């Protein structure tokens, strides 16, 4: 894309959509095409309930994807979210369990429920702060740092649950949050949380200075720093944001299942990364959008549920996932090169 051509055709350049929107549209149309193909191949696939299920069954990964997307756009990884999901869930259970259970695993701290939730969120934020400290202060590559904090977070959860789970001696109100139905419909609170989070994220990304700065930092950190942006502070906020989301997801999941399980959220960090990549977010930073991530999640959901619908062995899911990511990455690279020739 040379500058001179652009200057000559200012009128058209204004009408021309950005690369960003182009890729997002591409991802959305791929998701739609895949859905239509699956509808032809799989019986009973083309139903309103099924479309809703594709979104609602994946609320946890989509929510985590929001934080991961913002960090990827700023040029950083966050692989710790799966570990934080386990940690905050286990913490909320441990804090809320009453004192004096039959054994070690049914005895908690007996805190009031609201305080238990705050404590669990605090634990999640502490991991986020640890991420920020290592990435920003010590300048260690984020992929290593967040791999480490992932293991530390899950490790703490495993120590608290002694490698299994805590699910007894809980207050009555514990299970309410995760299974609460809102507005008298079958939509559950976690799904509403995901929807609200998506709206908020899109607003921040498109309309607020904070969102636009994230792109700038990701595209060229040095230029951003030289033009007076406090990169360190910005990335710290992003890590806290991502870990807070993961903390809430962990709390909601533990409430839904009424247990704190140390292996919950296993591999969720990779799924969140994969849907972000499917959604066209560049791993180098500075490019991508939350809407793209959402449609990336739909692509993955359609592929996996179509595989189940075709009664393929669950082993096929791994191969289909690999194929979907490969094709998505190739299509995006091809589309961008072609467009910018």
């Amino acid at each position: 894309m040379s500058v001179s051509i652009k200057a000559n055709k200012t009128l058209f350049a204004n009408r021309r959509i950005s690369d960003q929107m182009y890729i997002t549209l591409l991802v959305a149309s791929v998701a739609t095409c895949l859905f239509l193909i699956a509808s032809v191949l799989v019986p009973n696939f083309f139903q309103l309930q099924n479309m809703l299920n594709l979104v609602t069954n994946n609320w946890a990964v989509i929510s985590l994807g929001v934080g991961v997307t913002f960090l990827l756009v700023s040029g950083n990884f966050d692989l710790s979210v799966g570990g934080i999901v386990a940690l905050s869930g286990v913490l909320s259970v441990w804090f809320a369990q009453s004192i004096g259970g039959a054994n070690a695993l049914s005895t908690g701290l007996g805190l009031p429920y609201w305080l238990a939730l705050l404590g669990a969120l605090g634990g999640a934020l502490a991991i986020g702060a640890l991420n920020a400290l290592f990435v920003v202060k010590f300048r260690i590559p984020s992929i290593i740092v967040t791999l480490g904090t992932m293991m530390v977070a899950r490790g703490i959860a495993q120590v608290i649950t002694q490698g299994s789970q805590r699910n007894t001696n809980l207050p009555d109100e514990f299970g309410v949050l995760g299974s609460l139905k809102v507005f008298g419909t079958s939509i559950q609170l976690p799904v509403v949380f995901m929807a609200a989070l998506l709206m908020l994220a899109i607003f921040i990304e498109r309309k607020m200075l904070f969102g636009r700065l994230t792109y700038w930092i990701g595209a060229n950190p040095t230029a951003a720093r030289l033009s007076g942006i406090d990169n360190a502070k910005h990335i710290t906020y992003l890590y806290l944001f991502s870990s807070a989301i993961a903390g809430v997801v962990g709390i909601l999941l533990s409430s839904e299942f009424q247990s704190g399980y140390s292996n919950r959220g296993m591999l969720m960090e990779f799924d969140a990364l994969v849907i972000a990549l499917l959604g066209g977010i560049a791993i180098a930073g500075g490019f991508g959008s939350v809407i793209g991530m959402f449609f990336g999640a739909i692509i993955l959901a359609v592929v996996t549920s179509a595989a189940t619908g075709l009664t393929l062995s669950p082993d096929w899911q791994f191969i289909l996932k690999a194929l979907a990511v490969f094709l998505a990455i190739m299509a995006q690279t091809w589309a961008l090169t072609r467009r910018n020739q």
Partner: protein
Amino acid sequence: MKTVNLMSKSTTFVYSRTALAGQVAQFLRNYYIYFVLIAIIAFLSAANLDRFDLFERGNFLYEKNIINILRVSAPILVLAGAFTLLMVSGYIDLSVGSTMGLSAVIYAMLAINGMPFWSAFAITALCGALLGAFNGLLVVRFKITPVIATLITLSLFKGIALLLVQDGVSAIKSMGDLRMPQWFNAYGREGVLMGLPMAFWVAVGVTIVLIVLQNRSLLGKYAAATGGNPTAAKLSGINTSKIVFILYAIVGVCAALAGIARASFMSLGDPLSGDGMELTAILVVLIGGTAFSGGEGKVLRSFIGALIIMTLTLGMLTLVPAYYQTLVIGAVLLGAAASNHFISKKGQTLSE
């Protein structure tokens, strides 16, 4: 006159102190890993003293315990060196765990269908080379970022391995008429020299070959050049694509050898037997002092790093319950990353 003398004196003093500190930092950078290994062994032996006598049955330095740790470590020991070379060139392979699982399945399938040891071994290693080359193809030819490319193959190889094992069974093992041959677990278990099995000596051999390759061959020099400054390497006429492709194939072979060692030790071909290996490999290489950004790192130090991790994880079982493992490994990873950072920073600022 006097003041000038004083000044020059103090300058020399400051200078020599800086030089000394620089030497100390250099010494630490080169040899700290051996002290860490010795410290961990000393700690684990001392911690068990109240229960057992030194060098006696049950204690850490008991001969059988050492042999056991070394033969369990064979998979990571054989993989660490190749993984180091790849990271030195600035690339990464997240699919090693899946390659390992797939190789374990292939090896077990060949063995259970009556193929003799050496041909099963050779074919599996060849498959490993092909899997590694496929990674190299995605990275070099299709120009996909290494992290994404190997995340794709992580999923792909695992899927293939799971599909090769028939439905309703979790791994390739003796069933009905099909029986595992007698020799199957000799490779990973039976001592051939100093009580240590073939798998361990293969790991030592591979490491020695890779050390020679890194220090004495063009491949090693070009790998470091590629990692240190890819553009400069390309401009000075190095075919970086070829180097990276070869390194991915080598990592594939080593991951296959690791899979054979694991399958032989456990006497079954488990498609999930390599799960988490990519984390262990990254951990080991980082503890060995390899820079994640590429350009720096030594095969031998990663070998020692692998010994440290395996000694720590297995030795810890004598002190705390198994569910502390994830936490300790995570903390060690963060600690290693932080200390790497501080040691190299100190050395740099002082030598400049």
